[in-house]
């Protein structure tokens, strides 16, 4: 068989990097077996070509190359309707610093991300504790809270628009209760951003409930009982037994919510289009898309996109690190 030939050649194949010999016992053996196995299929790429390449190629072509292009465009004045494209150095980034609209979009995005992260986490935990019982009623209620997670943000946006608009269902209800001038949830420039944040929170709540429920079910009953026998009250039991064991769930939820908040786009496009007024509910994602596809200022929108990416990545990685360190120490 050709496999055997390749097997002998594999021992001297320079393309397969060696494990450091410091590994001990069985681990070393399986690594060696694996090395022989991967060399057996033959030429340099080996299993990499067969198994890894198709997925990686799609990722490189539709994610990595576009990221590189965004980075490159951010240093140009690219505008497909106004050629030629010229290198402008850091000018786009310099312009961003003084761009009032972008600054507002950035602040709005941070506000949305913080509100969504805090409220969906707190609400999700409370509801998970409420529903942490195995009977049918609670299982059905889990389904109720999870439904919005399965629906599209567009559908959720349209539903809430019908509820929150000036003559919408909520205000009809409030008028029925005798409130003469109910708030303009989506038309008041001071309120609209918070309404958007609420809508995203409402949609993400069920996700947090499910993740916290999984965490709660991992808390051993004996631990609770032991603490209870030792005289710990409800609050003390939660603080010292339950909460530390929920650390991995908190990590997942927080990172997921932060990323969701930071990339908020659909709700703004569907409900407010950035308004009322100029940019009161505009987010970074919305600003990037508007500048790229309505303004065709690709150079400038790419600089915004680069700032957005760096911000999302930095915040997520820092938060992830902090929360994971907390998981270990507790």
């Amino acid at each position, binding site marked *: 068989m050709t496999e055997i030939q390749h097997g002998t050649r594999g021992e001297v194949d320079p393309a397969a*990097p060696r*494990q450091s010999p410091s590994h001990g016992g069985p681990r070393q053996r*399986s690594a060696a077996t*694996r090395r022989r196995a991967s060399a057996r299929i033959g030429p340099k790429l080996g*299993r*990499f070509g*067969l198994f*890894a390449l*198709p*997925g*990686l190629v*799609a*990722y*490189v*072509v*539709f*994610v990595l*190359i*576009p990221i590189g*292009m965004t980075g490159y*465009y951010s240093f140009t004045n690219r505008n497909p309707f106004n050629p030629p494209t010229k290198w402008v150095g850091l000018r786009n980034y310099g312009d961003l610093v003084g761009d009032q609209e972008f600054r507002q979009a950035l602040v709005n995005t941070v506000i949305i991300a913080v509100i969504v992260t805090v409220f969906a986490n707190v609400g999700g935990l409370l*509801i998970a504790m*409420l529903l942490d*019982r195995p009977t049918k*009623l609670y299982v059905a209620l889990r389904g*109720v809270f999870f439904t919005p997670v*399965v*629906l*599209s*943000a*567009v*559908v959720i946006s*349209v539903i809430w*628009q*019908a*509820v929150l608009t000036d003559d919408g*269902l909520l205000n*009809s209800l409030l008028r029925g209760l005798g409130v003469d001038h109910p708030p303009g949830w989506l038309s008041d420039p001071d309120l609209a951003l918070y309404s958007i944040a609420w809508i995203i929170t*409402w949609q993400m*709540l069920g996700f947090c409930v499910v*993740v916290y429920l*999984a*965490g709660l079910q*991992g808390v051993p009953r004996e631990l609770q009982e032991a603490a209870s026998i030792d005289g710990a009250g*409800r609050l003390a039991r939660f603080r010292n037994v339950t909460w530390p064991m929920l650390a*991995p769930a908190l990590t997942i939820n927080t990172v997921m919510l932060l990323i969701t908040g930071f*990339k908020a*786009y*659909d709700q703004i*496009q*569907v409900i407010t289009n950035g308004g009322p007024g100029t940019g009161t509910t505009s987010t970074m*994602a919305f600003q990037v*898309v508007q500048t*790229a*596809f309505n303004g065709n200022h690709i150079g400038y929108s*790419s600089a915004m996109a*680069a700032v*957005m*990416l760096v911000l999302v990545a930095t915040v997520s990685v820092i938060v992830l690190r902090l929360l994971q360190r907390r*998981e270990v120490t507790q």
Partner: protein
Amino acid sequence: MDDRTHSWLRPLVAVFVGAVFFLPLYLVVVNVFKPGADIVPHPAALPLPPTLDNIGAVLSRPDNLFTFGLINSIAVTALSITILTVLSAMLGHYLARSKRVLAKVAMVTLLCGLMIPVPVILEPITGVLKTLGLMTSLQGLVLVNVGYYVPFGVLLFMGFVRSVPLELEEAAELDGASKLRVFWQVVFPLLRPASASVLIFLGVWIWNDFLTPLILLGPDSGTTVTVGVYRAIGQHQSDFGAVFAFMFLATLPILVFYLALQKNFVKGLTGGAVKG
């Protein structure tokens, strides 16, 4: 436990909170089956007698916004998740097993992809698709979905591959099976729980995607149902019955898909969640 003293309180609070939470969805469902004129005066009333007029109107739209959108959504979602499940299972399997530096680099690069928001790369993607001659085509959208969601699939599969004993693969290899055969007949069947999670997660996400199909399919060619909802509200903002019926029909397929596979979904979600 002090549960016994408040045994009546918990179900009461739970049902109340659940009902308030569900109210917006209830409003949609009841108003789909209500004549348009009754919706604004009696939004919360039950649709008695129920009517199918709103649904009929959506199905018989002269522009076929719903029917064409539905066909496109089914095609794009089904193709994307099938390709994604196979490719990310292969890639995840390889990356979980390989000790090569190249594999480590590929893994870290892929994990970074989990954080990238679509708007950051959307304009260059249109450039790539134009170069490939696939802009405003369903194939182009499928390929972009595959590239964008492959990191998530790989992440899920990698965790599961580690639970498949290496000895199984080695035994099959000793029996003379090729690498591809080992993967298809030994590894892939064992990864079924992960495959189910990937199918459901990505099925729901891709079905619900808005910005990507909005830009990549463009205004001229057909669009997906999710973008169709957006187009529909632009046309008759005040006709709640028609809009709700459109949303109801656009959501029904993915809701059924989700409910059919729900058990695996929560298992997959929590499996990853608890093990971290």
